[in-house]
């Protein structure tokens, strides 16, 4: 499985990578993007099964990224997980219609991320 992490914080990307590598989920490659534009570019040139995306990013934010993915049939099999500091009801409702499998609120414990990853990996394999 190939994973893409879109987050403008390099430390957060590193943490997510570290947790992913600590799980038993077989991962072929972990790609990183600093914003939605980079994420779209990497998705176009790589066969990615699972996307973790932040919401607040400079340039193209996570909501716009998810909107573009939802409007393009190429990504219908991509499993999408939001990892964001924004846990508001308003934000959750905004992305609810954008094929998001899970919304994980920062801060999170590594165990929660592991469980989300395991679930998302199952979905990505189906």
């Amino acid at each position, binding site marked *: 499985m190939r994973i893409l992490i879109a987050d*403008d*914080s*390099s*430390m*957060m990307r*590193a*943490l997510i990578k*570290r947790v992913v590598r600590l799980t038993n989920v077989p991962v072929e490659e972990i790609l990183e993007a600093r914003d939605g534009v980079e994420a779209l570019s990497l998705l176009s040139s790589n066969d990615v099964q699972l996307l973790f995306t932040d919401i*607040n990013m*400079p340039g193209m*934010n996570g909501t716009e990224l998810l909107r573009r993915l939802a409007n393009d049939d190429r990504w219908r099999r991509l499993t999408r997980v939001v990892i*964001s*500091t*924004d*846990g*508001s*009801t*308003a*934000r959750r409702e*905004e992305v609810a219609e954008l094929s998001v499998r899970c919304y994980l*609120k*920062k*801060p*999170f*414990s590594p165990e929660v991320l592991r469980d989300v990853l395991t679930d998302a990996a199952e979905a990505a394999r189906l």
Partner: protein
Amino acid sequence: MSLPMPPKPLDFEAADKLIVAAVGTVAERSFFSFVDPNSDPVLDDDKEWLVATLRFDDGRISGRLACSVRSDLAQMLFDSFSGRHPSGPLPPSHELDDLIGEFSNMVCGTWLSRCAGDRLFQLSRPVVEHQTRPAADERHRHWVEVNHRPLIIDWEVERGPDKGVRRSSQ
């Protein structure tokens, strides 16, 4: 067809009470650190401070939040988050800045989700500066201790027709 409900006015007093709890949630959950909310101001040392400032805006209300973190605490938070051993090589400055920016981002996001969860705020990317003193005193200031080291949270609403419920003392 019914129109969506407008967001409730921001209750400044309630928001002010929630900010320290937000720091506690972030520090404990992602940085394995403990917060003492009843800290006295401590400025009598020559340590550097990292001041992370970010703006929030939902189109009607805008403001800013600043986290001032003393450098020894910044290092401690970095180690907790990254797994770096304290005796290992020091992290580059840009990684420390990124981490303190992310800390402030999490505090602001957690806080706004709790005090104004029906609003869609955009948060700016945190700007981190190294200073000899914490941020200049803002309208709302809280001193706390994280792992027995000082951290200061300042927040202020700067603009918006929807100024919400004001504190009775103002």
